[in-house]
């Protein structure tokens, strides 16, 4: 059950992947934020710290930002910003 692209439902994957890659509706757990610049600081201050459960809620059209739920609120971030957040245990409903 460790195949990243497993189509079977409710199959958590231990493989790390960027938050930007998870599908709409998928849930995952933050492993960490890459880098140590102001973006990384802002992402951590927004609750994307290790262990935080996240859920992908929506994607804006034309490759725009994505919306995730973290700690019960909704956070919008651009795809390249989300690419800095590593998640694991991805569950696609």
């Amino acid at each position, binding site marked *: 059950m460790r195949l990243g692209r497993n189509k079977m439902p409710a199959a958590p994957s231990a493989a790390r992947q960027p938050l930007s890659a998870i599908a709409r509706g998928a849930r995952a757990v933050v492993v960490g934020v890459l880098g140590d610049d102001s973006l990384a600081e802002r992402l951590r201050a927004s609750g994307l710290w290790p262990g935080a459960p996240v859920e992908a809620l929506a994607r804006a059209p034309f490759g725009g930002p994505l919306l995730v739920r973290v700690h*019960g609120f909704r956070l919008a971030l651009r795809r390249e910003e989300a690419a800095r957040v590593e998640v694991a245990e991805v569950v696609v409903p």
Partner: protein
Amino acid sequence: MTGAAAARRIALVGRANAGKTSLLMHLTGTLQRPVNFPGSSVECVASDVVEGGVRLCVVDLPGLASLQAQSSDEQAALDALQGRAGPAPDLLCAVLDASKLAVELAFLRQLRRLGRPLVVALTKTDVAASEGFPVDTARLQLAIGLPLVVVDGRTGAGAAALRALLAAAEIGGSERALVDRGDGPAASPAAVLPRVIARSATDAIDRWLLHPVCGPIALVAVMVAMFQLVFVVADPAIGWIEAAQDWFGGVVGGLVAHEALRSFLVDGMVNGVGSSLVFVPQIALLYAFVTVVEASGYMARAVFLLDQPLRKVGLSGKSFVPLTSSFACAIPGIVAARILGDERDRLATIVTAPLMSCSARLPVYVVMLAAFFPPQQAGLLLFLLYALGLVVAVAVALVLRRTALRGGGSLLVMELPTYQWPQLRLVAAHTGYAVRSFLRTAGSVILVATVVVWALGYFPRPAAIGERFATLRAAAPAGEAGAARRAQLDAEEAAAYLEQSWLARAGKAAQPVFAPAGFDWRMTVGVLAAFPARELVVPTLGTLYSLGEVEASADAPDERLAASLRSTLGPDGRPTLDALTALAVMAFFALCSQCVGTLAAIRRETHSWRWPLFTFAYMTALAWLVAVAIQQIGRALLS
């Protein structure tokens, strides 16, 4: 705390959207005065209230999400917080959003390290409950070990208790537990938060409003509604103000016998005040609308949907907020650009904001369209004029981001709040504040400028003209029979005075510059008079074009002006204005930056003369080029 004179400075600290502003309103009753942080242009709202013999000076700091600043707003808030700009606050009141408790507690840990006396106001507990995780405040207070009051930003419940706490909290000594000595008791989010999140109403709404197809359609609908509100609903109110202005001018004119003084009061003062007042309905409606959109939580969704398209042209999704405000007036729009964290994004937004057709341009469009185009074409042309500003703004932003403002890039990372019904009180307070500051700043500039334009158009008064017309008037038949002739002579006399006034001389001197665009000297005077403020164009054109008119009609002022714009003849006996020239005039005003207030705002916000001068130069050049192109290409096609 030493008796009745004691005052303490209290800073409200928290995230943007945590509810600081409505909390301040409930704490002190009003949003009284804007204050600038020392050494910066960042404005915040402060208000005073007396509680238990202590005067509380409460400052609402710009939103902070962590103690590392990302924007000039946040830097100013941090400086104020840490006493780097003026005296440090005596007491911090952390305004924490219960619906984001996990990150708020992380922020609180950072705040405690500042070592300042600290109390907590917990807001939005109703939102947390509606999102499916009610907060156990008793447990939370035990966990954080700080005085905590639950306040409801909508009803104001809890504000009195918080006021009492702010007045009574110990701020001097360190013996009380208010000054924290480190991280304090562990306030782990897991201790106070359930892990399972239920679907909420906001999720259901977002399913449609953020849908890849329905979302953009809804956004366009919201924008159309905004323009309908500003241009259709405001119309009757504008009519009432104009009627009141006419009536008042008539009353004043009847009371004052002295000719120059009467002209000064009626044409200068009443006209000047009136020409600023007519914008109040539109500005009030636009602000009310923007506040409703913002308070309901939709503004953040618009930013989310528009981020990618706006980035493609070198702006940011967050530019949407300042650019939207600029449709009412560029000045608050330029100030609102502070929400952009990246300096290059902010400058690109500031420099393009004046291209959004502000409400001061609308009267020019309305008068020209009414005079030269049938109503069914006028609506389309009005839309095209707004589109012209947008298209040029996109082009300018694209060029700038590839040249002077290359590189950089802001962060988006922002919260999309839970949808809420906007509070009427907050909407009213914001709208009232916007209208007052418009009247204070724009009103004074416009008033002074109107008086200057009046004086330049009134003087000099050579005696020869007066004598000539006195003779003609004496020759006219007496009584009813000569009334029409005398009225015509009055108008001719006024026109004769105006033709040799300083204003007309300036217009005639500058006219060659605008000749390729087809502007006659009167329109050139309009352009010159518009420089202090665009609000002056229509009153000035009214004076210049209507003075030659014979009969006073009972039509609306716009109708009167429209008729005289069509009928004014040039030296060659042909009308000086036609539909093509009207198009050139409107395009010129759509693109030019004839507004001292806007340029002053850019100077203030960029701390240099470079950007206001650049904005003025590029906009004026573009406006002239487009007006000339319309006139020359149009003539070539028509002939």
